[in-house]
């Protein structure tokens, strides 16, 4: 059945009206977005100061984060392995050592066994430690022979590992046993503390960003209170009035976030070549990590989010106080 013409016409005009309202709403948002940016450029010095303070706070947090990330990359390569090093007594000959290694290969708990003679250990040490010249001056080789045992993966509880360790210690040829895991665990605990510390410092700096932006918006609101009064008197809603201020907060956070990224990247570039040099000196494949694309996005998002949050808090409280007289 066809709808009567008048109803259809009415629906049409209602739809048009809604579309019109929506367009006006979008336009209003776009206007808020760009006019607030324009407003920031009209007081370049004040804006730059605020943005710089925010950027420093954000780059401190981001900088700590990337430093810890880099150190973690260094220790992360050392996967928590249960590898054991059996240091042999000084009087054990290479052939006796090799024999023991062959025996250990048959051990039900061992996955892989590698025998390193005194000479091999010395050669490796000479090549990697950077003390090559000095070591040639030694009459005797102070390094012991080592058998590296990689236990089966099924042995992952500490008790099992310790039992095996005790067993190996009983062997007459063995001087002492060391599990690599122990120092890796220590290192990882230190890193855990470091990343917690970074989290806490970032939390504080995040508060700083929120409050600094909030205070800037409070001053801006005070500066433009006539505009707020008049807008209220001609029927502006709270949402309408706070929109440009929220966008202003957004821009402060966004630009500060971007500047912080720049600061961090420049700092990393400055330390990159000495780090690389150090890394080659240690024969390491370590490569300095920069902020990745998603970390960059997260930085922008967090910075602008916190800034908007700070602005919103202040507006929520202050706009109710500003009543037209």
């Amino acid at each position, binding site marked *: 059945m066809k709808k009567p013409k008048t109803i259809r016409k009415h629906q049409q005009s209602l739809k048009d009206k809604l579309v*019109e*309202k929506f*367009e*006006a*709403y979008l*336009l*209003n948002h776009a206007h808020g977005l760009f006019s607030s940016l324009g407003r920031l450029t009209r007081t370049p010095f004040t804006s730059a100061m605020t943005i710089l303070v925010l950027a420093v706070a954000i780059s401190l947090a981001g900088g700590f984060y990337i430093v810890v990330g880099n150190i973690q990359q260094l220790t992360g390569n050392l996967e928590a392995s249960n590898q054991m090093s059996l240091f042999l007594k000084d009087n054990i000959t290479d052939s006796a050592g090799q024999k023991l290694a062959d025996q250990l290969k048959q051990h039900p708990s061992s996955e892989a066994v590698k025998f390193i003679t005194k000479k091999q250990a010395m050669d490796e040490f000479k090549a990697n430690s950077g003390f090559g010249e000095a070591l040639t001056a030694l009459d005797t080789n102070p390094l012991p022979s080592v058998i590296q045992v990689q236990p089966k993966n099924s042995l992952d509880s500490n008790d099992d590992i310790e039992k095996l360790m005790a067993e190996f210690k009983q062997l007459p040829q063995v001087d002492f046993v060391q599990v690599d895991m122990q120092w890796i665990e220590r290192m990882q605990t230190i890193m855990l503390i470091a990343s917690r510390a970074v989290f806490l410092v970032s939390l504080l700096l995040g508060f700083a960003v929120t409050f600094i932006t909030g205070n800037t918006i409070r001053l801006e609101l005070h500066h433009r209170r*006539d*505009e707020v*009064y*008049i*807008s*209220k*008197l*001609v*029927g*502006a*809603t*709270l949402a*309408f009035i706070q929109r440009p201020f929220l966008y202003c907060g957004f821009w402060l956070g966004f630009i500060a976030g971007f500047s912080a990224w720049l600061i961090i990247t420049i700092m990393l570039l400055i330390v990159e070549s000495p780090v690389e040099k150090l890394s080659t000196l240690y024969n390491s494949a370590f490569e300095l990590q920069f902020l990745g694309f998603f970390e960059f996005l997260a930085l922008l998002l967090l910075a602008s989010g916190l800034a908007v949050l700070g602005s919103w808090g202040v507006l929520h409280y202050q706009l109710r106080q500003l*009543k*037209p*007289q």
Partner: protein
Amino acid sequence: MLRFEHVYKRYPDAGEALTDINFDLSKGEMAFLTGRSGAGKSTLLKLIAMMEQCTRGTIMLDGQNISRISDRKIPYLRRNLGLIFQDYKLLNDRTVFDNVALPLIVSGINHQEVSRRVRASLDKVSLLGKEKKYPLHLSGGEQQRVGIARAIVNKPKLILADEPTGNLDPGLSAEVMHMFEEFKYNGTSVLIATHDIELINRLGHRVLTLDKGHLIAS
């Protein structure tokens, strides 16, 4: 259009500003509100503009009880009002066009419509061609006309004017008053607070007189 029923307004520290106010203003009616300074003219206008709430009584505006109203509804009701002030209350960092357009932008009117209505409104106060000027580059009379254009651009049902001619010379005052008379013929109610007795007498409209918070003549 506007009805006051037993309206009282008491300020905690200044005592009673309005006592038992009763009156009616019908659609398309123009009235003057007069009385000495401190008689309660501004308080009465503030109650209508929802800048204050009355202590007791009922104020009806276009069928809505505005004496007890939530803060959230106030903006929408204010769009039915056109407010005019003695000190114009223009935004000096915005052009004449932007000043007049503000009530429309606030109501979410689309761009073309805003442009059309602002020009129509400026035409009514004979300021067409000054859209791009800033308020401070205009004379006092012109600034007040910008204020009037802003008040009528949203086609309000009621215009409230607080001493609109207070800063204008007699010639300009008469001109502004004639503008108000024109709006009245379009069905808009007009309430003007003034103590310019001479002007009131010359125009011969209804006069509401306040004295120490009481309405003594209506």
